[in-house]
Structure formats: structure tokens, C-alpha cells
């Protein structure tokens, strides 16, 4: 019977090549402290953290349909917890960041319960207001400097590792590690049963609900996990920044608008998009940032032009041309080649 000649695979030739190249790239990146200068190391680290934020936002907006403009709430929350737990709790920064993630998940639960009642634009504005509430609330905490903010005491930074080089390498590896963790989790999650459910929800909520998918629960799970990871990334960001203040920690421009820019430019709803978007964003920033106002105007212009000319982003353009998928999420049904059957 013909049926027996079919089987299912979840990978492809290009994906295998991409995975191989990706692994090599990862090894090279892991070794960066030995080949890269201090500035490059920091730049790659920063790039990694932006990539992590972008991947997480993409998971929410691109897959779960949760268009949030308030993710800075969790970035800032993570950052502040890093400061609070290390300064007052005397915790090691790495441990503090891990705990910040857990607490991020915890606070996201009531937040989700509130804002999940809203849809579309209301949801977006609601998340923004929540982030403002976070900002204004932390501005009331005088132990953390209130509205003026505070610096991470040098002693705490030094406690990270012995010597400047070791410290910088560790900070870098943490950033790289979290990013790999985020991208890998997003990838594995989307390949999993729950991920399939999420993709189904994105395509058609009516059908998804009728096929046993609990839409609210699935989105809730995504929101909570994203919040936790975003808080951890926030902790790492402010470990690099060394100084935190409410305006900086809960900046809608830095932690959400630029991230949306990255994701949409790169291609929303794909794993590749945020990666490409991050590279484009940093390329623009590194080449033009010294131009000040001009740089920002160029950024705005790029956003508009890409949105009008390539609404699916750069990866969308590439994919429609070459049918590539570097991170295969789907299933392929193939006819068996073997003659034994």
C-alpha cells in the first residue's frame, strides 16, 4: 500500500547546513574573549541582549498575537531587582538575575490577569500604562534612589569575578548564554506541541479552540515565560549599564520601540527575523549614531519605508524569494527511498 511509503521528517538539508554553520558560529562567539577586543566583546554582548529581547517580543507579538508596547516593564523590573538583591540582599549578581527572572514571572501573573481582558490596540496601550505604573512605582522607592536612580557599587561588580578581563568575559558569556537560551527555548517551544498550538492560534483562533487548544492558557503561559526571561535580560542589561534610574530602566524607546523596530524590520513571526533585524539595527547604529538627529531620522525613515515596501520584513522578502527556513518548525511528509519495503 502506498501509505506505508510515507514518513515524516522535521528537518531539511538547508536547516542541517544552517545548524552546522550556527554551531560553528556559536563556538567562535564563545571563544570571543580570546579573539575580540574589549569594545567588540561589549558590543557583541549588547547585540546579544537586544537579540534576546527581540526574540521574546517576537514570540509574543509574532506568534501569540500579544502586541505589547510595555515590555520595558520587565526589563526595568529585572534591572531594579538586580540592584536591590545585590545591594540590600548581598546576593551574587548572577544569582540575583536568576531570582529576578522568577519574580518577573510572579508579577506577570496578576498583570496578565488584568490586561488579558483587553484586545488589540487596547491591549497595547494597557501594557504601556502598566509599564508606566512600574516606572512611577519604582520612582517612589527611595532606597533605590527614587526618581534619581542609583549606581551599582563597584564592589558588587568586582565580586563577579577576579580581574577586569575575567569579569568582562563572564558578563559577555552571561549575555551570550541567555541569548542562546532564549533563542533555543523559543525554537524548541515552537517545535513542541504547545508551539504548534500557538501557531495554530495565530492562524485561526476559532479552529484552534475547537481542536482542544486553550487559547487563554496558552497565551498566558507565553506571557509569563516571556516576562521571566525579559526580566533576566533586563538584569544583564543593567549589569552592563552599572546605573539604573526609572526613566532609563523603563524607557519605552530603548526597550520596546527599538525592539519592535528590530523585529518588524527583520520579519515578524519568524525566528530568523529578529536575528536579521538586530544585525541591521546595530549596523545602522554603529555607522550613523554619531550623526545625532540625522541618525534618528534615518531610523524613522527606515521603519516607514520597510513597513510600506516590505511589510513582512527583510526575512520575509528573502523567504518569499528562496523558500528558506533556517529554523525548521514544521513537519515534512516524505516518500521513503529504501527499496526494502
Amino acid at each position: 500500500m502506498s501509505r506505508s511509503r510515507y514518513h515524516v521528517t522535521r528537518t531539511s538539508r538547508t536547516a542541517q547546513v544552517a545548524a552546522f554553520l550556527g554551531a560553528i558560529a556559536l563556538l567562535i562567539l564563545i571563544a570571543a574573549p580570546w579573539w575580540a577586543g574589549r569594545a567588540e566583546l561589549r558590543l557583541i554582548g549588547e547585540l546579544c541582549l537586544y537579540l534576546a529581547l527581540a526574540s521574546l517580543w517576537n514570540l509574543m507579538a509574532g506568534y501569540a498575537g500579544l502586541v505589547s508596547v510595555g515590555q520595558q516593564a520587565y526589563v526595568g523590573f529585572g534591572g531594579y531587582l538586580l540592584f536591590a538583591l545585590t545591594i540590600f540582599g548581598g546576593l551574587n549578581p548572577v544569582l540575583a538575575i536568576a531570582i529576578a527572572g522568577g519574580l518577573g514571572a510572579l508579577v506577570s501573573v496578576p498583570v496578565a490577569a488584568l490586561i488579558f481582558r483587553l484586545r488589540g490596540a487596547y491591549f497595547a496601550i494597557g501594557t504601556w500604562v502598566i509599564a508606566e505604573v512600574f516606572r512611577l512605582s519604582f520612582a517612589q522607592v527611595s532606597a533605590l534612589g527614587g526618581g534619581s536612580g542609583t549606581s551599582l557599587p563597584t564592589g558588587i561588580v568586582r565580586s563577579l569575578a577576579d580581574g577586569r578581563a575575567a569579569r568582562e568575559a563572564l558578563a559577555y558569556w552571561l549575555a551570550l548564554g541567555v541569548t542562546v537560551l532564549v533563542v533555543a527555548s523559543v525554537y524548541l517551544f515552537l517545535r513542541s506541541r504547545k508551539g504548534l498550538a500557538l501557531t495554530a492560534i495565530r492562524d485561526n483562533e476559532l479552529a484552534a479552540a475547537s481542536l482542544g487548544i486553550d487559547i487563554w492558557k496558552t497565551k498566558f503561559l507565553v506571557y509569563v515565560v516571556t516576562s521571566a526571561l525579559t526580566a533576566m535580560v533586563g538584569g544583564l542589561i543593567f549589569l552592563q549599564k552599572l546605573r539604573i534610574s526609572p526613566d532609563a530602566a523603563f524607557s519605552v524607546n530603548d526597550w520596546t520601540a527599538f525592539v519592535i523596530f528590530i523585529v518588524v524590520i527583520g520579519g515578524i513571526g519568524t525566528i530568523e527575523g529578529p536575528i536579521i533585524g538586530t544585525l541591521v539595527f546595530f549596523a545602522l547604529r554603529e555607522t550613523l549614531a554619531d550623526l545625532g538627529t540625522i541618525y534618528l531620522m534615518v531610523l524613522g525613515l527606515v521603519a516607514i519605508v520597510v513597513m510600506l515596501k516590505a511589510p513582512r520584513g527583510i526575512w520575509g522578502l528573502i523567504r518569499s524569494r528562496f523558500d528558506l527556513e533556517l529554523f525548521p518548525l514544521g513537519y515534512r511528509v516524505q516518500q521513503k527511498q529504501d527499496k526494502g519495503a
Partner: protein
Amino acid sequence: MDWVNAIVQGTLLGGLYALFAAGLSLIFGVMRLVNIAHGDLIVLAAYLGLTTSVALGLHPLAALLVVIPAMAGIGYVLQRGVLNQTLGDDILPPLLVTFGLSVIIQNALLEGYTADPQKMDAGALETASFGFGGLTLGVLPVLTFAVAVAVIAGLQWMFYRTPLGRAFRATSDNQDIAQLMGLNKAHVFGLAMALSLAVVAVAGIFLGIRTSFDPSIGGGRLIFGFEAVIIGGLGNLWGTLVGGVILGVAQTVGAKIDPGWQLLAGHLVFLLILAVRPNGLFPRVDA
């Protein structure tokens, strides 16, 4: 008396917020467009007002005669040239495009006018006041409130009593079917944006008389505008006024308790209202 004062001043402040929000409410209601650049457009209008009043030696309020048509023209061109292409079920394209616009306007103003704070000189109007039942009220805030009410009443009348308003409502209900009635939706949306920016012109002038402004202050006000719109309910203009007043009163009463609570109180009241009524206080009743 202090509490009464806080509430009265909050109500007047609400008028300002409603003025900020009215244009936003209009386009949000007609085309579900979330305009991130709205705050920056208000600032742009303030600069236009400043330039015209200085160049022509006009009173800022007289400058409205120039600024309103100018902003309306900008709105129409903007809508037809750029924003119409981003409309659809997805809220992201307009969000990102108007974000881009916001960045461009801000930085272009910075290039053109520097970061210096500017203010429009409205002479005695700025400081004039009158006594009212034991309170001292500023003429300008009262005028702002009155203008907000007038603008909203005007928009409301336009929306419910004129062919243009019918066209707005029909296109907002169902774009395809509206097209079948001979309405060119690109044009209708262009007109809606033109009208929105005409209101923005008024808001900009009043902002510029009330306080000093620089290119960067637009964004901060934007969120109050959105809150007023959402509290009031999608596209409900009187609702927007109510939303603005609720926000203003929440802020002044919050500030009365502790100045640090001023903005926070506004946001918390917003969240509270949404928790109870996710579609705002006066949602439009659809079929």
C-alpha cells in the same frame, strides 16, 4: 475647599487632556489607527503657531487661522501618502510607521528649532484670573476647557449630523460596503486625519500658550491622550471628554494626597476602569 479646588483644577486639566485626545479619538474611532506621532504633531503645531505668530506678529489664537489649515493639509497628505497603506487588521504597521514619524518629527524640530524651550506669548490671557465661589480660576484653563467642550461638541455634531460624519461612521463600520456606496475610503480617511490634525492644531496652540515646549515633550503627553480615549470608549467623543476629566481629576486628587502620586493615580484609575469595563465606559454598541 482644598479638595474642591483640586477637583475643579483637575476638571480643567481634563479639558486640556480631552483636547489632546479628541483628534486621537476621531481617527481611532474611524480607522482604528493608533497614532504614536500624535503628541509630536501637537508639538509641531505649537511650533507652527510660534513661527506664524512671530513672523506675522499675530496673537497666538489668531495664528490658528494659519495653523489649522496647515495642519489639516499635512494630515490629509500624510494619510493618503503614507498611513492609508498601513491600515488593516494588524495594528503593528501603523504603530511602527507612526513611531517612525514621531522620531522624524522630533528630530527635525530639533534641527530646525534647537532644544531651547519656547513659549507663545498670549499676553494678559496667560495670567488673567477671576474669582469663582471662593476659588481663583485662570482664564486660560477655563478657556481651554471651553474650547475642548466646543471642539468635542463640534466633532460630535459633525459626526452625527452631517454627510461627512455619516461617511466617517459608515467607513468605520465597514470599509468595503462604504466603498460600494461611492465613498472613496482613502479620501474619507484622508479627511478624517485632516480633521484630526485640525484639532491637533488647536491643542498645540493651547499647549504652547499654557507652558513652554521643546521638541521632546510630545511623547510624554501621548499616553494621557490614549488613556482618555480608551476610558471614554472607542470613538465616543463625549466619552473622550469624560475620560480626560476623570484622568485630570485623578491626577490632581492623587497629587493632593502626595505629589508623587499625581501621574500614578491617573494610570491606576485608568487600569481600574479597564479592569471593570474592558471596553471603556461608553463603548459603541455594535450589532
